């Protein structure tokens, strides 16, 4: 079962998500920064938003460590696959 915890403030998380989304839109279309930096920042923001949903809405922050591991295991596998596929184009 979940560890005893104070319920997160879901509305606050919603505000965070809205702000981050607005930041992404501004970054993508308004700010004059280099393409690669833009890419990096947008990915970072997207992952941050996804983490907020995963940790607070899906309550992963309050679950046992072994459930957290189970939820995360596919990610390194996906990364390995994508990096290997991309490496075909850098040699």
């Amino acid at each position, binding site marked *: 079962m979940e560890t005893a915890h104070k319920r997160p403030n879901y509305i606050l998380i919603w505000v965070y998500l809205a702000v981050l989304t607005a930041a992404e*839109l501004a970054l993508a279309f308004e700010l004059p920064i280099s393409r690669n930096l833009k890419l990096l920042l947008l990915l970072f923001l997207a992952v941050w938003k996804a983490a907020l949903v995963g940790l607070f809405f*899906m309550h992963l922050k309050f679950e046992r460590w072994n459930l957290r591991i189970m939820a995360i295991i596919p990610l390194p596998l996906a990364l390995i696959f994508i990096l290997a596929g991309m490496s075909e184009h850098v040699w």
Partner: protein
Amino acid sequence: MTHAAATVDQMLPPYPAERGLDVYNKKLGMWVFLASEVMFFAALIGTYVILRFGATGEWAKPGIVLNIKITAFNTFLLICSSVSMVKAYAAIQDGDPKKMRFWLLMTILGGAAFVGIQVYEYIHLVQHGFVPSGVREGSELAELVAKGTLPAATMGLYGSTFYTMTGFHGFHVTCGVISMAYLYFTKALPGKYTKQDYGGIETVGLYWHFVDLVWIILFTIVYLI
């Protein structure tokens, strides 16, 4: 069933049994299923990344083919429906089935609206000439390609990856809406969810948040980059 465990509280793992993960079966099953879904979207998203990274030509600039304004609103809508879902979960945790039903209904409507807007977007795109195989000849977008605003070499890949990723995401959202509607009418309305037994809400909620999470990634890498 002939065994004695039928009276056990639905929210606890089965007893008598070893402790396992201390998470009841439905919830554990949903997390396990979501792990497989991550791999499925990893295949589709990974394909997009690999194809785009390895493409010999330029990729279309964001915002030209796809409608950012409508999709940004849609993203916001889906995030709102995620909030309403978690509020439904919090409501039944507090033992308020009426509030739970309200928020669950909001979630269903939000999800259905998302799908509706996506379908509208698809129809719009096809009318302008953007199809899974790329750009249709003689269409509006074909003129942009001729002018050089859109790169001819990669439009085929753009169409293939766009429709596959967003299409399967939309399919998952639709399945979510149908599941929630089913639970709403068969379980939530007749008052079968209580403070002691709301596993179905938590389980479907996990699925719904996952679908939102995938969209958060997709919106960024498909529409904004």
